[in-house]
């Protein structure tokens, strides 16, 4: 009797499992159709001639071009530059927010999140207004006598970097702030009561305990900046050409699908490489921490 009941129950459980699995099929279908299939298509396209025959010619052409390598360098420079400024500006901001009273911190977070909710095009436009030759910042600089000539702040690498840091800073801040807010205040008090200066406490207690958040923030910065398109296209003024811009140019000017695909795959490879690098660095730091704990 019970055996039959068990079998019936197991069949029921299996049926229920299949039913629940089927609920995710529509979403999986659309993502497969519009995200995964296109990526597979890019991979296939990168091995095709314009006539549709298989070739590695696209790779030879793209990898032997100096433009590709300078695009790769620009991409990496923009990403690491953005990350450096995010750490420099975001970490102290997170520290201040984490040590503010909850009400004040919430209010300030709302201000920090304002740009996150504003369209990227609105922000890019705002930077154009601020950074142009006759823009607000140059007017302030020359007006106050700090510089005699307006500075070239936009349509170049500087302008692109400013726009990208502005876009990424709130996204970087979120995980760092979360990590710092979760630090037990007693640890900081203990450190202070043992006679550590503020600098020592920040270096030996606060920063190591928020390293996880800084890592998450850094990975987010990379995921976004590696393929950034709008900001370099507008604020770079044609002079800043990371891989994303080269892809667009290859498609729109030369209609060269094969080369554009190869550039796309380069972007993926770069992302994977940096991802591996980050994981390795995280393991190294974690191992180091365990090592000192034992010593």
């Amino acid at each position: 009797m019970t055996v039959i009941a068990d079998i019936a129950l197991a069949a029921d459980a299996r049926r229920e499992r299949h039913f629940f699995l089927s609920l995710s099929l529509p979403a999986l279908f659309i993502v497969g159709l519009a995200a995964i299939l296109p990526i597979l298509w890019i991979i296939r396209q990168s091995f095709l001639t314009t006539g549709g025959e298989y070739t590695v010619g696209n790779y030879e052409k793209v990898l032997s071009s100096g433009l590709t390598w300078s695009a790769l360098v620009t991409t990496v420079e923009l990403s690491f530059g953005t990350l450096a400024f995010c750490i420099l500006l975001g970490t102290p901001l997170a520290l201040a927010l984490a040590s503010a009273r909850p009400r004040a911190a919430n209010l300030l977070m709302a201000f920090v999140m304002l740009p996150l909710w504003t369209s990227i095009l609105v922000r890019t436009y705002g930077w154009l207004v601020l950074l142009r030759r006759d823009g607000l910042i140059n007017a302030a600089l020359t007006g106050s006598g700090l510089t005699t000539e307006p500075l070239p702040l936009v349509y170049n690498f500087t302008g692109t970097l400013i726009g990208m840091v502005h876009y990424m800073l709130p996204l970087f801040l979120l995980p760092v702030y979360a990590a710092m807010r979760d630090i037990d205040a007693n640890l900081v008090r203990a450190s202070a009561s043992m006679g550590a200066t503020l600098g020592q406490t920040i270096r030996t207690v606060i920063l190591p305990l928020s390293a996880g958040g800084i890592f998450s923030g850094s990975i987010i910065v990379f995921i976004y900046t590696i393929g950034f398109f709008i900001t370099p296209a507008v604020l770079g003024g044609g002079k800043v050409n990371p891989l994303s811009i080269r892809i667009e140019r290859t498609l729109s000017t030369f209609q060269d699908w094969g080369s554009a695909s190869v550039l796309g795959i380069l972007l993926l490879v770069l992302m994977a490489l940096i991802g591996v690098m980050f994981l390795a660095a995280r393991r190294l730091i974690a191992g180091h921490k365990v090592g000192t704990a034992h010593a």
Partner: protein
Amino acid sequence: MLEAYPDNRLARILLWSFCALVMAFLMLPTLVVVPLSFSSSNLLEFPPRAYSLRWYEAFFGSATWMAALRTSLILGTLTAMIAVPLGLLACISMNRLGGKAAVAIQGVLLTPSIVPGILLAIGLFFVLAAQRLVGTLFGVLVGHVVLAIPVACIVLLPALARFDWNQVQAARSLGANWARAIGGIIVPQLQISLLSATLMAFLTSLDESVISIFVASGQNSTLPKLMFLSLRDQIDPTIAAISTLWTVIVVAVVLIVTLRQKS
């Protein structure tokens, strides 16, 4: 956290002045656009010498901008209407299955938010071009739905984790079928999260530019696509008016979501 150092006033003043500068950096580009949109001049002078609504009139009087606004609003609405139900079903599935199956589903559904937008855009362009669908509303819609699904899931998954499944079991044992259980018990209880997910999906579509730049064209150009082209080619204060309206709308939406979540 730093209250353990009450004597270190200088450090605190330095830290907070630095933060004020960073906050100014974050807010300035959004705010600078607002006064410009009310300028009466063709030039981007700051502060404007005289004020007018001419750039708002230019926006609302332009057939091209209005067509783009209509396309963007239609796309946003359709995207939210498709992405949120699909996301909800997928989240129920992940919640009930648990374990490796849930991790695998989540992994697939989050791909669009990890892969660079430019790759999704050209990949979708290739696939649509092969089907002669480039420039159609359908093509852009698919691209937007795929970006909105992860957003909807991020909002709904934690909401479902707090949901008491015994209620569904009770309804089921009383004879309700699944459609009825989902529509009658899960949906009403997740109302607030579903509203947030809908607004977020709508905003995701409204703000999406890269896929639209590659895939949308002509009649089906979206507002961000036109804004992008106009920013790249010439700077016209109409953009300031659009930007201001846009920011006001987004801030209103975000305020509604936050206030409803609190209440």
